């Protein structure tokens, strides 16, 4: 066997081992929540929403850092923008690449949880793949608005530093904030304990509320409704 083939095989085995480990970890985290195929109640919706918000804030944070580098780093922009290539093409390609990278990173982390959820809770959980991809696009759009807004407000020199600080605050504030509230209220660092508590649940909208409409397509998948996937992606 050639050296190259051997290293490819080793890398493949490494990826499989990591994937198995992450799936095992996801199972350990999720199996204690009982029947995952039951219709979602307020607590489940609160936890899923909070997790998506956590993911979303991390995506915005990542996207801001990358948008700052892609838009305002000198790097190769001088070379390309001094050429006849249309600037919008360059930025469209770079924005697309950022979206793909962020979605791929988020999906790699979320995939074990989604797989375990769909294995034990039904195929409707697979809709989470589409939701996370859509969330990456929304996160990127938000990051672009924030970064360009910073550029217009405080100028080019301070944008990079400020964007990195804002990104760190956005990325950390939600996760730390929820954990802080959990420790103060329940003496436990578990965010899920707080999200499932009676105290919080009474403020969570009822299952029938219009605010939960985005879950409708996911539920529709359960009933094998064909247009549901399109709806999931549009959400």
């Amino acid at each position, binding site marked *: 066997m050639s050296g190259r083939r051997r290293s490819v095989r080793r890398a493949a085995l490494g990826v499989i081992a990591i994937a198995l480990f992450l799936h095992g970890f996801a199972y350990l985290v999720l199996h204690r929540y009982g029947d995952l195929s039951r219709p979602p109640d307020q607590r489940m919706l609160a936890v899923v929403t909070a997790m998506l918000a956590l993911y979303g804030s991390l995506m915005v944070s990542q996207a801001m850092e990358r948008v700052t580098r892609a838009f305002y780093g000198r790097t190769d922009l*001088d*070379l390309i923008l001094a*050429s*006849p*290539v249309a600037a919008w093409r360059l930025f469209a390609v770079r924005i697309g690449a950022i979206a793909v990278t962020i979605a791929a990173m988020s999906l790699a982390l979320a995939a074990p949880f989604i797989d375990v959820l769909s294995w034990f809770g039904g195929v409707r959980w697979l809709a989470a793949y589409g939701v996370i991809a859509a969330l990456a696009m929304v996160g990127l759009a938000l990051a672009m608005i924030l970064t360009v807004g910073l550029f217009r407000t405080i100028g080019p020199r301070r944008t990079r530093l400020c964007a990195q600080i804002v990104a760190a605050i956005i990325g950390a504030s939600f996760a730390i904030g929820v954990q802080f509230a959990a420790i103060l209220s329940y003496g436990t660092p578990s965010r899920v304990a707080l999200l499932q508590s009676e105290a919080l649940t009474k403020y969570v909208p009822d299952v029938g509320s219009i605010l939960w409409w985005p879950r409708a397509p996911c539920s529709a998948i359960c009933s094998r409704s064909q247009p549901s996937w399109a709806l999931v992606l549009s959400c």
Partner: protein
Amino acid sequence: MDQDVPSFALEVRGLTKSFEKPAVDGLDLSVRTGEFYTLLGPNGAGKTTTLRMITGLLKPDRGSIAVFGIDALADPVAAKQITAWLSEEPMIYDKLTPMEYLEFVAGLWSVDSRLAAARARELIGWLGLETHANDRCEALSRGMRQKVALAGALLHEPRLIILDEPFTGLDAGSARLVRSVLRERVHAGCSVIMTTHILDVAERMADRIGVMVAGRFLAEGNLDDLRRQAGAGDGDLEDTFLTLLETGAAKRAVVA
């Protein structure tokens, strides 16, 4: 001279750009076809900002820029097609070889791949990079990287070559080589506008020199014109330049 060729390679009128304070302040500048023009000035005089606006990398607040008669603000793509830009610290991709880099640059200017390969080999030869043509750029010295970037700038056979401090970091041999390549381009009918702090290079190469301070011209012309404007006798460019800066500073102090 061919009647279809405009007599001016570059015409800049009332060019203005402010950041926190004015960087370029109503600048008028003309470079003739086949002319080697050098912009001099102390740090912060607005030289690089001027060149970046001409290249289309910065949008002016006011003013007009015409490259061989093409309105560079209204039709930047057409202007960029015939313009080359080489910054003080050009970026070249570390993981590419010089030949691959030139192939990439040729793609940006839509140069036919076979023609680009021939020109790339020719430029690599001119600039003495043959032995490194297939090494990755990360292994090249600063001077060699500068030469690769210059080859990239010349690949699409530009008519207006804009250079910001092209001799920074070059050893004597490389500097001579770059000077001879630029001279050859000017003899071939190209126009060059360049900034430099190396006054010796400016004195030897430039047909005309513009001395900028605080975004405006303090003096402009050939060395004799500058001497006259400075009232500096028969001094070399360094003496003339320093006298101009001193008198300019004194005048500004009086006005203030």
